[in-house]
């Protein structure tokens, strides 16, 4: 019995100690990890959709809350003046959620572009929603843009209607957040 107790105590102590040390380390590194993930995962997409800016959108990012959800907004500034913002959102695609980074022109309330950040669509079919042929259609369009089949002007990728719909849904949801947050955004970055 004593040996069993010994076993229990030692193993539990090792596990508990490592749990403590690791969670401490996690808390210490969490902000840096978040920044790194943003830089390397969302970063390229953000810089893609926010063209002609001269600040660092990731460093100046800010969190807002919309209907209880936390939304991260990345501002794009030129000569210190806010010209565009990027908001990420997702919609249901064929293989799972399609994450889309959506850029908004603040003065004209149009889209400056979209970029796919995460997706699990069928390689060769659904993944073509990340091609410029599809994403490029959004540049300069109004924020409530839809697919042609839904009465809008966007051509869906042939053979990947569900993936395309997912992307458009994501754009729509981001636009909704943008519309709700616009006053706050303008106030935050003047």
């Amino acid at each position, binding site marked *: 019995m004593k040996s069993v107790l010994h076993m229990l105590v030692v193993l539990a102590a090792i*596990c508990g100690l*490592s*749990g403590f040390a*690791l969670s401490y380390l*996690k808390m210490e590194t969490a902000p840096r990890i978040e920044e790194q993930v943003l830089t390397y995962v969302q970063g390229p997409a953000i810089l893609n959709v926010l063209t002609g800016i001269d600040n660092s959108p990731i460093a100046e990012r800010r969190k807002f809350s919309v209907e209880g959800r936390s939304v991260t907004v990345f501002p794009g500034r030129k000569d210190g003046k806010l010209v565009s913002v990027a908001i990420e959102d997702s919609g249901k695609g064929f*293989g*799972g959620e399609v994450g889309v980074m959506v850029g908004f022109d603040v003065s004209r309330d149009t889209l400056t572009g979209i970029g796919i950040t995460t997706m*699990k669509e*069928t*390689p*060769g*079919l659904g993944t073509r929603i990340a091609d410029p042929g599809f994403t490029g259609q959004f540049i300069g369009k109004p924020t409530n843009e839809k697919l042609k089949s839904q009465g809008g002007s966007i051509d869906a990728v042939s053979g990947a209607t569900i993936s395309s719909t997912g992307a458009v849904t994501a754009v729509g949801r981001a636009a909704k957040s943008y519309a709700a947050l616009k006053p706050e955004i303008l106030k935050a970055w003047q």
Partner: protein
Amino acid sequence: MDVFELFISAIFVNNIVLAQYLGNCPYLGCSRDKGTAIGMGFAVVFVIIMATLCTWYMQHSVLVPFGLGYLQTIVFILVIAGLVQFVEMFLKKMVPPLYAALGIFLPLITTNCAVMGVAILVQREEYDLVTSLLYALAASFGFMLALVLMAGIRERLETCRVPRAMAGTPIALIMAGLMSLAFMAFKGMTS
């Protein structure tokens, strides 16, 4: 994803040993003769499926709800190590014939990265439970296939004249390379 496609792709196209570099130590270590290879193969099939089941539940009932995703590695390996040791004791008492057949391979499996690899891969792919188990089954069959094929080749190799410096592990690795080359031909079979 189509079940059939998942199977074919996990066994041939993305074979865990030859395309994903997992489980190489037993692949070279337990491929001296076919009997050993088959024994090891079945032990791995058994353990991978059990481990995937346990770690899947661990992930979805503990790690995700508490937001402890970063502890995945340590939790999974503890579960696998405990599981393997438990299975060994269980088989020894309850199913001695099976223990006699697989027993000596079980302790070797804790450090087989194929087991841990499959457990982590199904989480990264975010498969549901049934798909995870199917994937685990297919992946472990792929491991067994590679192992048994390799054992067949090495039994033949025994009777061949091999340059002295190449004898043993080097020639086995080169054979593995050629096999992996052959398996690359399956690429493109699934989309």
